[in-house]
């Protein structure tokens, strides 16, 4: 599984690329794998304020919904306009064309809580261990075939 060096990572499986005071944010390879085929992405508009650790967007697969949490706080400079029309880009290129928002960071100290690539890789390995003892994590997408009223 790909965990590029030079990015910062959150426990909610978002990555951050820092360029001066600007943060580019997306979700990790692991996150997109867990979700399966992504069918919908909802992002904030430029100018909106985003609070660290609050949900700023939503990604949906066929049978699951996941909030995307802001690893750092700030003001949205730009959202990736290509995603609503081609959400599969998040599956195909999570660290590249699948980026989600660019933020003007309000407090660079927010970065302190984030993990390095090495730490994140370890974190994911741990998570997988908890999920599934024997497997390699390459799981079929879960189908919530429930409920019945």
């Amino acid at each position, binding site marked *: 599984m790909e965990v590029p060096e030079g990015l910062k990572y959150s426990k909610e499986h978002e990555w951050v690329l820092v360029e001066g005071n600007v943060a580019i944010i997306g979700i990790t390879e692991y996150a997109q794998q867990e979700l*399966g*085929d992504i*069918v*919908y992405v909802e992002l904030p508009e430029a100018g909106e304020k985003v609070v660290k650790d609050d949900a700023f967007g939503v990604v*949906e*697969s*066929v*049978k699951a919904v996941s909030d995307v949490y802001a690893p750092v706080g700030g003001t949205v400079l730009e959202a990736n306009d290509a995603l609503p029309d081609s*959400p*599969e880009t998040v599956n195909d290129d999570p660290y590249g064309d699948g980026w989600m928002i660019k933020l003007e960071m309000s407090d660079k100290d927010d970065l302190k809580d984030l993990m390095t690539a090495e730490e994140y890789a370890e974190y994911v390995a741990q998570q997988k261990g908890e999920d*599934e003892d*024997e*497997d390699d994590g*390459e*799981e*079929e997408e*879960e*189908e*919530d*075939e*429930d*409920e*019945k*009223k």
Partner: protein
Amino acid sequence: MFESGSPGRTGFFWPEEAGPTGLPQELLRDEIPGFPELGELEVLRHFTRLSHLNFGIESQFYPLGSCTMKYNPKVNEAVARLPGFSLIHPLAPPALLQGAFELLFGLETALAEIAGMDAVTLQPAAGAQGELAGLMLVRAYLSEKGNPRRKIIVPDTAHGTNPASSTLCGYDVVQIRSNDQGMVAPSAVAKVMDESVAALMLTNPNTLGIFEKNINAIADVVHSKGGLVYLDGANMNALMGIAKPGHMGVDVLHINLHKTCSTPHGGGGPGAGPVGVKNLLRDYLPVPRIMKSGNGYELREDFSKAIGRVRSFFGNFGVLVRAYAYIISLGSDGLAETSRMALLNANYIRRKLESVFQIAYPERCMHECVFTDRLQQKRHVSTLDIAKRLLDYGFHPPTIYFPLVVSGALMIEPTETESRETLDAFIDAMTSIAREAEENPDLLKTAPHSTPVRRLDEARAARKPVLRWEPKRD
């Protein structure tokens, strides 16, 4: 349907009537663009062809856990079509509706008796609407006492409608985990139970098919802090003549008539979700209520504490007629036998399959049992693959990936109306699929092979939704 036919064709004949419609031209539309233009036989062929693409109970075994896909008796259908039930208008004078009111009153009484409750409303159109109505009763009762409170406790094994209904009723949801026996522990409830909690919603037997044997103790915990206990009666088919929710400390419940009382699922409705209450909630029931008066029955709306109306008219009356026919067909003895045989069938399947699939919880099961795909995962075969392969064997799959607390859940509810031979055939199919998982996993991963269509691209459907037919553009 939109792609065949011919301009001007119709399957409906009505003699031409002369004279103006009386409506001013500027209010009228042009013809309905795109509407079908088919003859009667064309329409019937179309829908008969569609019907052949469906599974149904009279063609296949449907062991769908938590759905109670039992046989839907024909006599129920016959009586529901009597003009005295199907051609009556809800706003006709009560004198013209006495038979209907007597039936509704009789059904309320019977359901109250079966569930051990004091009063019943038949208005909710489905289980989820019953939940909403039930929670509104709780809220009205607590408001009257001075504080509606803020939270509803819902276990992690609950149906998704429980939290959704709670939100709609203005409550926050507090989820609690079930213990390693697949049950809710009184201590887990006690930990989150305080004066801010309005109610606990519990399903019993729960969605793992396990009886919550501590339910009375749990109810005591909730009651001690002034909260109420809501029972999701989706699994009532396990309890008739075996235990009454009214004796379990339950204050309010709903029953799904399309499950327990055999009314057909219809491909997703109509159902009915009557709500039963203890006396403390009686005054809050939706209006109108049907009351005995003299020799007959009357409708009364003069209940100042009532929550109002949750549905127009009298709920899904046609469904209620079928449920009533079912209850009087079976009677006290037949209803009890129904639940007993539901338990027998489920336990039989559990025993015969426990060496082939991993059982989710070792506890005794009631009317359904839950397996997992853990053994099959070693060959990278998932519950979804097993389910799809079952289609090739001519069986509808069990409920899968629910409840959420079981990874790769396969939830099997055979119901009482299946014979031992059918169960054996299903057990053989499951056993053979387990063998295939070992020997030829690809066969499962690419299943189904014999259905009208193969696995469908759900991601494509959701990414670029096509939700209606449109004429082809050249």
